[in-house]
């Protein structure tokens, strides 16, 4: 697990559902084929209506046309991030596009669980809304152990909510590594 996560922010609003994260027509590609899975990066967040794509201005595609990786590393979201279907393609596509952390006010539970159990990225919760304080493209730094988020342009620091018991799964890597460590499944 990385201790410091640094990169540009991509800011989204409330209730970003899994159909916006990865529209259903793209759920057909293989996740295990190394070439084919890049399609998930290509179409990550392609269902977000233009007005909400990269706040505050909107109209900033998460992944540039023709590319499969995003220039952004950290997503800043509002309430109920990842609501909708149980498709694990949603957290997977964000990871494939290069996302290392999501910082949102709250999550839909299946998405949160998938992010942790699958070890795609760390879903942090913020005690206060940050979508108005951070602009798409701003440089951010997350100190995982300290549980803080720094807005590099202004130097402002926020304390993130504690990850609670799931930190053990995150530290292990995913639910399988966790189960091996604790002897639930043979190493």
């Amino acid at each position, binding site marked *: 697990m990385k201790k410091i996560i640094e990169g540009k922010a991509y800011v989204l609003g409330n209730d970003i559902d899994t159909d916006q994260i990865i529209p259903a027509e793209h759920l057909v590609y293989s996740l295990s084929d190394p070439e084919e899975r890049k399609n998930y990066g290509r179409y990550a967040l392609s269902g977000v209506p233009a007005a909400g794509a990269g706040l505050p201005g909107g109209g900033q595609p998460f992944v540039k046309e023709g590319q499969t990786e995003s220039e952004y590393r950290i997503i800043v979201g509002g309430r109920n991030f990842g609501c*909708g279907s149980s498709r694990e393609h949603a957290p997977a596509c964000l990871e494939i596009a290069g996302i290392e952390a999501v910082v949102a006010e709250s999550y839909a539970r299946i998405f949160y669980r998938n992010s942790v159990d699958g070890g795609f990225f760390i879903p942090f919760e913020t005690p206060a809304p940050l979508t108005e304080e951070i602009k798409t493209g701003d440089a951010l730094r997350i100190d995982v152990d300290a549980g803080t988020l720094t807005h590099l342009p202004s130097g402002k620091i926020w304390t993130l909510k504690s990850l609670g018991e799931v930190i053990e799964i995150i530290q292990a890597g995913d639910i399988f590594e966790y189960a091996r460590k604790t002897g639930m499944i043979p190493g």
Partner: protein
Amino acid sequence: MGMTITEKILAAHAGAATVKPGDNIWVDVDVLMTHDVCGPGTIGIFKKQFGEHAKVWDREKVVIIPDHFVFTADPHAKRNLEILRDFVSEQQLPYFYDAGTDNYKGVCHIALAQEGHNRPGEILFGTDSHTCTSGAFGMFSTGIGNTDAAFILGTGKLWVKVPETMRFEFKGTFPPYIMAKDILLQVIGDIGVDGATYRAMEWAGDAVMKFSMEERMTLCNMAIEAGGKSAIIEADQVTKDYVQKRTDKPFKVYHSDADAAYFLKKIYNADEMQPVVAKPHSPDNKALVSEVSDVKIDRSYIGSCTGGKVADFRAAAEIMQGRKVKVDTFIVPATREVEADLHKEKIGGKTLAEIFVEAGASLGEPSCAACLGGPKDTFGRTNDKEVVVSTTNRNFPGRMGSKQSQVYLASPYTAAASALTGRITDPREFLN
């Protein structure tokens, strides 16, 4: 302190005498369901983690139901079905309802019920968020991702955080023009799309217990649209009659204790309920049908796990019999059994299917179809700026295909009445 039904089921499956909300526990799983969209990914992770030759923990407890992308020429979608077939034959799984065979059923949540896989007191996980539908049978059921499903395939266990329960009680009797969908859209409108996040929604009250199993499934289906982890309705004679017709397996009925602790208890007067819709683009964007009756529509869609059961079509046919639709109207039975019923059940001497065809509606094959957009050639998929009134459960941007289309969620009564007039219409205009 007493426990809710949900807490009792979870405790029993964790081997604990009691549990309380917030506890993280490991439970033994009774049924794992997966489908064509998430099955292949689940299988991939299972093999990677447990080995190429690993066997699933219990063949009898795995149910595979292709339903999402089964009537499309899309080559990737077809390959997903092949992956499921290979896995089923390698693992010798007895419950596989394969597409393109006589054994095909249709939408997983309805097929689970019809094939006897929903049993009171059990724990069912499924790789589909609407797995909460099965809670209508007095069981704990919830949606999970591929990783968790692969973990269950190998171990038969999963960790669960015990949810707090919210209780919604309806006293009295629902008026005849009110369907479960109206109730549910009302409640989601009241609490919001994240109003039940991490929690169980327990439906109760005389009015709810008068509902058929199908209407109860509609109520539980959309717990996820309020962010809920699960939904539950205590099993009663109606449940037992339904289940015993479809399986010989034993089951256990749990009841909530009178002194159980709830996060919230909300009591509604059933007699006062009114037909409602959810406006674009969120299931909690509630309006009374009477408030949006000037909205013109381009199509009406009646189908999906939440709105494509025979009770839904009986309601739609009641309104459409002897009349003609004014807009494109799509009828999509959830399963083969529902489809067969459309050709058997009659109103006024005509079968439901005849009523729909004579009204000018098109009938599709049982599947998820345009409920989730899907490949471009999907039946009923929106491809432009269509305004749709739909009995499905989600109206997020692009959910039914095109990001420009506008979807109003409504009951089958309202969807049928609107099909006849070309605008959003209160079913009372046609029901006497």
